[in-house]
């Protein structure tokens, strides 16, 4: 079954206009900053907000045609994992999972048996008698996922599934979530503002900005060819603007000059510098034609097999280096380092060419 | 805030027929009385039985009109409550309960001098019958029938104990639906037609002003004794008020509202 939606929805003076397609067994990620329309999308799909125009269809079944048809939330079979999970505190884990099975017509005893099996599949089989308040964030997320999947939904919808977790547990939980998502064979939609979630969980990503999709594609495609500065920033590529005068780039809004090997494209240009193209040194480097400058570390974020370092003035850009180098150089916020990027790694494109 | 104005409303009250309106007016009158505390006048506090409400309010008006320097404060309540208040130390110059037994208790507790007691009015029991007499009540003997809705005062209050005394003297086994804690509550239920009949005082029938029919009963008289209290700060004024109640003008007030002459 395939979910196809043309969502046009209105909330106050905000308009969402989104075309969406999710196939069985596919995880689609809706990635966007705050205010882009993510929660409006959740509300439309879960049945909290009727469409202004367009339609939502699950396979052959139309759920909302913005006219006569509006299937109420209880009949939609959209399994939602809410941002803060919304587990029912007056029920134990087993009954939380059994709730959606029971409401679909199964007798309570059968629903509990079934729920126990789902709990085991999602790694919470040992927590059946616990109350939600006794669970860790990661456990609660798995219970919420089991509860949503156990009702055999036609669409599995995860709203910011990792936002409620602290930084330490987020990376580990994200990995198990990726495995568990595959337990559900239907269409899956993950809503997130976190690019790391998007790249690790998504088979396909829709980038949503200000109510519109600005880019759609595989994580690899979006990573290598960001279409907007938001995508570039979240996808990891540094996107700058400036003017090219024979290889000397005067950057907009920054008191800094970069050199590029490209002298063909003159005038106003879009400049991309891949984070992996930038090297960091404790001492001033010397060698082939390259840009070098002294700077300060703004932040250091471990992302598994790479570490993302953000530099402060004069050129605030992202740099990816190995965790080993990070440790060897003792990189931490406030540390002074030399940054270096070859002129051949500074790519320019004419503005508007895309 | 004229005292005059309260009195006008109290007069009007005797013509009012519904219990609810009556209650509201009484509350209003009480509120007006409470806020018209003029200083500079001689204050006389009179504790009177609730059944004397109309008579004492009219007596107050008449006495104050004749004696503008006097300000009478009425405290109207059930006789037992009056006794509790006096024994509890409340300031009263004159007490007028609805039965001699209460007065005797006050004498025993030295609140009243036995020689000071005089009767100001008497009253008799009567059957109040709801408009149209739906229960076909003719006499107290009909209180033995089970199908009409019948009420009396609770035996703990004088009108109730008198009614039950009357029943037992006549060999009547009454079939009662409610024993109301006071006579006004009982009368209201008869006026509203909730009860087909109730045993009240003659004066209550008159006060109801046509809202109920009355059937006189051959029952013992009730006496209303008045006395100046031992702790009164105004014994002379108190004497004068009691003398006024016993005077022809005072007695006219009692008979106008349905009491018998003393």
């Amino acid at each position: 079954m395939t979910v196809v939606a043309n969502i046009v929805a209105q909330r106050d003076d905000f308009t969402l206009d989104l075309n969406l397609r999710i196939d069985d067994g596919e995880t689609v990620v809706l990635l966007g900053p705050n205010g882009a329309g993510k929660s409006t999308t959740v509300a439309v799909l879960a049945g909290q907000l009727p469409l202004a125009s367009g339609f939502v269809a699950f396979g052959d079944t139309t759920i909302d045609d913005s006219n006569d048809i509006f299937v109420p939330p209880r009949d939609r079979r959209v399994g939602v994992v809410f941002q803060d999970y919304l587990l029912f505190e007056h029920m134990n884990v087993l009954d939380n999972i059994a709730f959606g099975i029971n409401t679909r017509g199964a007798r309570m005893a059968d629903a509990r048996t079934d729920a126990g099996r789902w709990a085991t599949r999602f790694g919470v089989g040992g927590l059946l008698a616990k109350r939600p308040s006794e669970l860790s964030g990661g456990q609660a997320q798995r219970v919420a996922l089991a509860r949503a999947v156990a009702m055999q939904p036609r669409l599995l919808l995860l709203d910011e599934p990792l936002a409620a977790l602290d930084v330490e547990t987020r990376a580990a939980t994200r990995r198990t979530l990726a495995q568990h998502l595959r337990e559900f064979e239907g269409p899956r939609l993950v809503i997130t503002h976190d690019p790391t979630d998007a790249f690790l969980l998504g088979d396909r990503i829709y980038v949503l900005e200000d109510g519109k999709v600005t880019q759609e594609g595989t994580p690899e495609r979006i990573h290598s060819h960001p279409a907007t500065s938001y995508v570039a920033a979240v996808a990891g590529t540094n996107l700058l603007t400036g003017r090219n005068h024979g290889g000397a780039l005067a950057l907009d809004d920054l008191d800094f000059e970069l050199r590029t090997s490209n002298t063909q494209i003159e005038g106003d240009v879009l400049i991309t510098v891949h984070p992996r193209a930038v090297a960091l040194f404790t001492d001033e480097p010397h060698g082939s034609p390259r840009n070098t400058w002294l700077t300060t570390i703004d932040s250091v974020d471990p992302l598994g097999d790479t570490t993302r370092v953000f530099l402060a003035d004069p050129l605030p850009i992202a740099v990816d280096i190995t965790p080993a180098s990070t440790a060897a150089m003792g990189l931490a916020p406030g540390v002074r380092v030399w940054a270096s990027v070859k002129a051949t790694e500074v790519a320019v494109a004419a503005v508007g060419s895309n | 805030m004229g005292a005059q104005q309260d009195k006008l409303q109290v007069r009007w009250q005797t013509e009012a027929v519904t219990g609810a309106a009556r209650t509201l007016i009484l509350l209003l009158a009480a509120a007006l009385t409470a806020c018209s505390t003029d200083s500079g006048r001689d204050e006389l506090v009179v504790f009177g039985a609730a059944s004397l409400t109309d008579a004492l309010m009219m007596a107050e008006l008449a006495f104050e009109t004749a004696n503008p320097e006097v300000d009478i404060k009425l405290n109207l309540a059930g006789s037992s409550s009056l006794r509790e208040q006096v024994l509890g130390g409340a300031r009263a110059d004159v007490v007028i309960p609805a039965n001699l037994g209460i007065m005797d208790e006050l004498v025993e507790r030295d609140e009243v001098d036995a020689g000071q007691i005089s009767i100001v009015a008497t009253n008799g029991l009567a059957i109040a019958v709801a408009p149209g007499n739906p229960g076909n009540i003719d006499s107290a003997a009909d209180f033995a029938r089970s199908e009409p809705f019948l009420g009396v005062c609770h035996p703990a209050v004088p009108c109730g104990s008198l009614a039950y005394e009357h029943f037992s003297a006549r060999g009547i086994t009454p079939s009662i639906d409610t024993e109301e804690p006071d006579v006004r509550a009982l009368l209201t239920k008869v006026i509203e037609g909730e009860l087909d009949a109730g045993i009240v005082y003659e004066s209550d029938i008159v006060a109801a002003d046509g809202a109920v029919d009355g059937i006189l009963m051959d029952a013992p008289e009730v006496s209303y004794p008045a006395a100046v209290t031992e702790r009164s700060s105004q014994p002379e004024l108190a004497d004068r008020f009691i003398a006024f109640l016993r005077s022809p003008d005072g007695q006219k007030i009692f008979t106008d509202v349905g009491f018998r002459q003393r």
Partner: protein
Amino acid sequence: MSRTIKDRPPGLLVALAAIAIALFGLPLLGLVTRTPWTELGSILTSDVVIDALWLSVVTSIAAAALSLVFGLPLAWLLARVEFRGRDAVRALVTLPMVLPPVVGGTALLLALGRRGVVGEPINDATGFLLPFSIWGVILANTFVAMPFLVITVEGALRNLDPRFETAAATLGAGPLTVFNRITVPAILPALRAGTVIAWARSLGEFGATVTFAGNLQGRTQTLPLAVFVALESDRDTAVAISLLMVVISFVVLISLRDRWWSTR
């Protein structure tokens, strides 16, 4: 050896609280000092008291149950459904709390009495009559007690995050299932507290009951009515019954304190 450091509670607050305690405690002290201990047994086993006790127990529990059955849906309506005149309905619900109970009883009589606007046609058609019966006592008690439950429960419903109900709906639950299995369990503490408060208010109810239902031993005379008439003639009995009521309410309220009407 462990030392604990605690802030001393502010003296002013403690002093004011102590005055409040005295306000409640002194009348109880007065009651206890005037209790006729030697005759207590014979007074409390008299027919009048046994009858009144039984009526009070039955009618107060019935009134609490009715308050629950009708008050919970009403609280839900007020908290969750937007409709025209909702504020007016809310004000209407609190009417019995501000109205003197005697006036409330009079109003009930004018509406549901034997000659009442609604009571008369019902009586003519069915012969059923509320005044002067136990049903009248229960109705009067429910009238004064239910607002306490409605207000308590409505407050709890307003504090409940409606997204839990949304979550239940996405899991396939219809509105009634959501109400029964999510909403009610979530507000259970408030529901229990409201029921207990309604019961307590009903136990002490006097004015509306005597006005609407009358006063007859064994039929409509509850403990407060028995106290009131006893005050007219026999203070020992009045004090003894009052003490009995204090003991009943203390035993019930204290024994339910932890399980039933703690706020959590």
